């Protein structure tokens, strides 16, 4: 029998009970979340379970929600079961004051740079990562540019002498 979102949901709730929450299906893709301490347990279970076999990490990224107190930073994993050809999205949330999350590099070699990128832009500290340093930005940078407190330049600012581009 082919794997469906219903079965995945069932298997996960059997294993983790009410710790996996927020199940939803957007555009056919199953999405759920778990407490951040459980991220490796969930990923391992998804990887090893004979029925689920989510063994391909498609994408790993971060999102910043400054208004959600206590769960400002999200780490989003997109996993793919290539044999059954089904994808899912797994999220964990962490407070921005203590952004420690266990690394997935032990399970997926490909997570190495994806986590470095997420650290670089969002400031998620991946505990146990072999080489957690900035990847696209300069190493001297002391802030995390994709967080929402860094807005892009105001297009109407007038304090800049920029005659060539029609401002000031």
């Amino acid at each position, binding site marked *: 029998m082919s794997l469906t979102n219903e079965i995945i949901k069932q298997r996960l709730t059997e294993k983790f009970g009410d710790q996996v929450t927020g199940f939803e299906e957007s555009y056919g893709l199953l999405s759920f979340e778990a407490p951040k301490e459980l991220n490796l347990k969930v990923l391992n279970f998804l990887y090893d379970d004979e029925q689920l076999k989510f*063994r391909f990490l498609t994408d790993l990224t971060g*999102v910043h929600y400054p208004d959600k107190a206590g769960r400002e930073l999200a780490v989003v994993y997109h996993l793919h079961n290539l044999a059954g*050809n089904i994808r899912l999205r797994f999220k964990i949330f962490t407070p921005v004051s203590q952004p420690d999350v266990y690394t997935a590099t032990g399970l997926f070699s490909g997570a190495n*740079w994806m986590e470095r990128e997420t650290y670089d832009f969002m400031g998620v500290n991946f505990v146990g990562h072999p080489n957690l340093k900035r990847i696209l930005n300069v190493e001297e940078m002391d802030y995390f540019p994709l967080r929402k407190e860094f807005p892009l330049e105001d297009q109407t600012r007038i304090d800049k002498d920029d005659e060539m581009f029609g401002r000031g």
Partner: protein
Amino acid sequence: MSEHHIKLPEGSIEKTTTTLNLGPTHPATHGVMQNILELDGERIVSTEQTIGYIHRAFEKLAERRPLAQITTLTDRLNYCSSPLNNMGWHLTCEKLLGVKTPKRVDYLRVIIMELARIADHLICNSIVGVDAGAYTGFLYVMQYRELIYEIYEEVCGARLTTNIGRIGGFERNFNDIAFRKLEKFLREYPKVLKEFENLFQRNRIFMERTMGTGAISAERALNYGFTGPNLRAAGVDYDVRVHTPYSSYEDFQFNIPVGTTGDNYDRWLVREKEMWESLGIIEQAYQKVQEFKGAEAEVYHADVPEYYLPPKADVYTKMEALIWHFKIIMGETNIPVGEVYHSIEAANGELGFYLISDGGRTPYRLHFRRPCFVYYQAYEELIKGSMLSDAIMTMSSLNLIAGELDA
């Protein structure tokens, strides 16, 4: 230690390996990227890749732009095949907005996407030849890539950073000249590709340089998140076009070429085979396009007034068209709330767009899953213990595009 060796001060430790900086600007790196190689003689002991030299913060910029203006950002990801990125982006938007495109649009898109794939593979494969010392093939095929660029020009007016298509379809219908140019390409290209193959495929020197170097097993490739030709060369038949068809790819007959060893030679062969398959897909698509008759043959976009610009003549004469025009240009349309991941088979592998919208005019967050970025981290494992000259070949056969690495 021999007699003529330099006398070192007492207590100093002699370093037995050499550090070599390959890049950031080096003709063989084909882009701005640095490799700090630790060499023992000519063998590579370890390497560390530094990237980010052309990082342009696209994900941040996208948070301030309405959907239509993000297309120009995607041009600059893998600039060897911009139309693929553009189409991937339009398809993502259409998925979020729930737009259904007419069949003719899908087929025209398939033609453009496969042309872009050929252009990309052609560059990659001929550059592998250049790095092995065979310049002729590269110069020879360049004039046939030109034929592809001329088709782009006819459709969208641009050649490299194309910004081709719009949400819902194309900006204008393909004209007759475009189809004539396509026919010319279909007529002339197979002969050229065959000759290009003759130059390399069974060439003793080329085979010796590429076989057995830069190899990766299927298991490791999957663990690293490889996709596209590089994964298929290792023997895994994963292709987004087949696994999750988009733009009516399910209507076409084609094979997925796979390799066995995952080395440079297999990667070259897989790309070569894929060009033949792409040619076949274009021929099928062109045939399907010709089957549309009457009013259907004039369809080149879906009906999405909120995102598709009205004809300019209407803007000057009709109130409604003027309003839509203004709203689209100024980016004043609210995007529906949603979270969507859509991926396409780009020339290098699975190009994914993870788009989160909170109902505003611009995306709340946009993340590009760039295939190059994901597989370049395996480079150290691929070249460890090999010769310096093999590292050069491996780099070019992975098809690293700096724009896609850095986003």
